[in-house]
């Protein structure tokens, strides 16, 4: 193609996103924090016990964020996939004595089938209608968990789920589980960062921005939405399997409509369309809930109030809002220092 109308200012590669991947710096920071916590506080309840719950929620929120934040497709039934993985592992190991890892794979296979089957018809819907349909799906799965007593143990759930062991390493203590869940969490964050900043990630964001324009750019929008829906479901089911083995017990309460709503809240609270926003939202909400337990009955009231205040003053989400503010502040400071025209690398 012909030369640009205007010569490029400065010359050479420009500063900014291309190829430098600032996202990985964040991942390194996260990894350091995750590794440092149990070393600094090996006996702290908030690290070893709440920390594992935080890890699960981060995995779920990051996977849900791919769907809601990036592709712009709401799901109010995400806990169902978490539950499919968990119950898959629980039923196959306790009732059929299957090896936990095989049970995990079977759970993933079932989730893949279910998610693929409902993805096309459900993702044709938009906005409120999609919200209703996913909500319905979540409720159906929950009802099956409660009603299919012979298989699922009904409202009492299933107990006696065996632990997990890797070759040469049996997960026994809370700290072991912390290590495994943290490792999986970091991998999921890495996968998410990679996807977002790729051809597929741009296709997802294009679907969010304008589905018609995305189609005209050659993106098979139905297929793209379906793919991310299935991927998000698989990650959640994987987390569910680990959750079942970690807890040794599952009951329908862990996968109810309220859990789905909480996951959406984490994504929105941190800031949509930001992987670290989802991480931040999951960490904040899980810690808040654990910390607010001391307020007993008022726990949910305070949590609700915090959410309302955040949404009113930082509608783009805590993490995204604060990061934007910080960046703007730094830029203003730099401008004041540097003479105009200086290249800031």
């Amino acid at each position, binding site marked *: *193609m*012909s*030369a*640009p*109308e*205007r010569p*490029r*200012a400065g010359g050479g590669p*420009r500063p*900014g*996103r*291309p*190829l430098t991947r600032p996202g990985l710096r964040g991942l390194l920071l996260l990894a350091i924090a995750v590794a440092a916590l149990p070393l600094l506080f090996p006996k702290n309840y908030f690290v070893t016990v709440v920390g594992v719950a935080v890890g699960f929620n981060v995995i779920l929120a990051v996977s849900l964020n791919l769907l809601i934040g990036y592709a712009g497709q709401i799901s109010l039934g995400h806990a169902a996939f978490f539950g499919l993985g968990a119950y898959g592992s629980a039923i196959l190991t306790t009732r059929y004595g299957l090896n936990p890892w095989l049970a995990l794979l079977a759970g993933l296979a079932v989730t893949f089938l279910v998610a693929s089957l409902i993805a096309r018809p459900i993702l044709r819907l938009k906005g409120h209608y999609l919200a209703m349909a996913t909500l319905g799906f979540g409720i159906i799965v929950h009802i099956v968990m409660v009603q299919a007593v012979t298989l699922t143990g009904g409202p009492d759930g299933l107990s006696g789920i065996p632990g997990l062991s890797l070759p040469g390493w049996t997960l026994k203590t809370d700290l072991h589980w912390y290590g495994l869940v943290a490792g999986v969490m970091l991998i999921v964050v890495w*996968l998410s960062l*990679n*996807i977002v900043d*790729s*051809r*597929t*990630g*741009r*296709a997802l*964001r*294009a679907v*969010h*921005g*304008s589905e*018609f*324009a*995305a*189609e*005209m*750019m*050659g*993106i*098979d*929008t139905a297929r793209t939405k379906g*793919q*991310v829906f299935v*991927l998000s479901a698989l990650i959640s089911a994987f987390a569910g399997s680990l959750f079942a083995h970690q807890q040794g017990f599952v009951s329908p309460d862990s996968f109810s409509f309220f859990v789905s709503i909480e996951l959406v809240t984490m994504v929105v609270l941190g800031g949509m*369309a930001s992987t670290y926003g989802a991480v931040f939202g999951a960490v904040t909400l899980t810690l808040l809930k654990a910390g607010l337990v001391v307020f007993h009955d008022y726990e949910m009231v305070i949590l609700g109030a915090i959410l309302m205040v955040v949404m009113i003053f930082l509608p783009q989400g805590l993490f995204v809002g604060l990061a934007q503010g910080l960046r703007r502040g730094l830029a203003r400071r730099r401008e004041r220092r540097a003479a105009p025209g200086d290249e800031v690398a």
Partner: protein
Amino acid sequence: MLEVAGLAKSFGGVAALADVHFQVPADVVYAVIGPNGAGKTTLFNTLCGFYAPDEGSVHFESAPLTGLAPHAVAARGLSRTFQNLQVFFNMTVLENVMVGCHLRSRTGLLAAALRLPSVLREERQVREWARAALAFCGLDHLHARPAGALPYGVLKRVEVARALASRPKLLLMDEPAAGLNDTETVEMRGLIRRIRDAGVGVLLVEHNMDLVMQVSDRVLVLEYGSVLAEGTPAQIQADPRVIDAYLGGKVQYAVD
């Protein structure tokens, strides 16, 4: 290049298009004009697979387009811009145009998630293509800006760059000059000419008659969903039926 035969589309009894015939030769600017509601945008949406026609057929390079989904139409080498902006406001200018390279690249979900070396190579290539398309539209200096921070006139050209990045054989432009000021309209005129000179056909819907008459090789006039006239700009300007449709008749001297 593009052959439209007997195309008809109606919405609840209102015929938006009725028995529309025309042929667009390769590498020309072909304009479609007509009063508001004449069916121009319906024609575009039908051509690119957004609406299924009730009757008739569309052939592109002798292969039928009718019945294909928009993304499949795009894969045949047809791209478009939109009357009401359909920019991806959640991305930077460069990323917008990189989406335009979707059909020229391969990376799937799994390879992207694992960020294989081949993915990085392709990313670099896509970035270059997108920068070239931006440069072609005179927008390269804005590539790092978020799309949401740019004025309307610039975004109109971002859409053009995005469409060109897919390397189409035919570009459908739906009112590219609508809402532009005089300077921007002149820029857009130059851009349309450069696109044609680069060997890309342009199918243009536009209300700005000066622009249409200056850039078009041929003009099609629609009225009430039917073809009123077809010919070179000079023929169209002299056609009494067109003057009637546009000016309500009896004032033929008003057209120079």
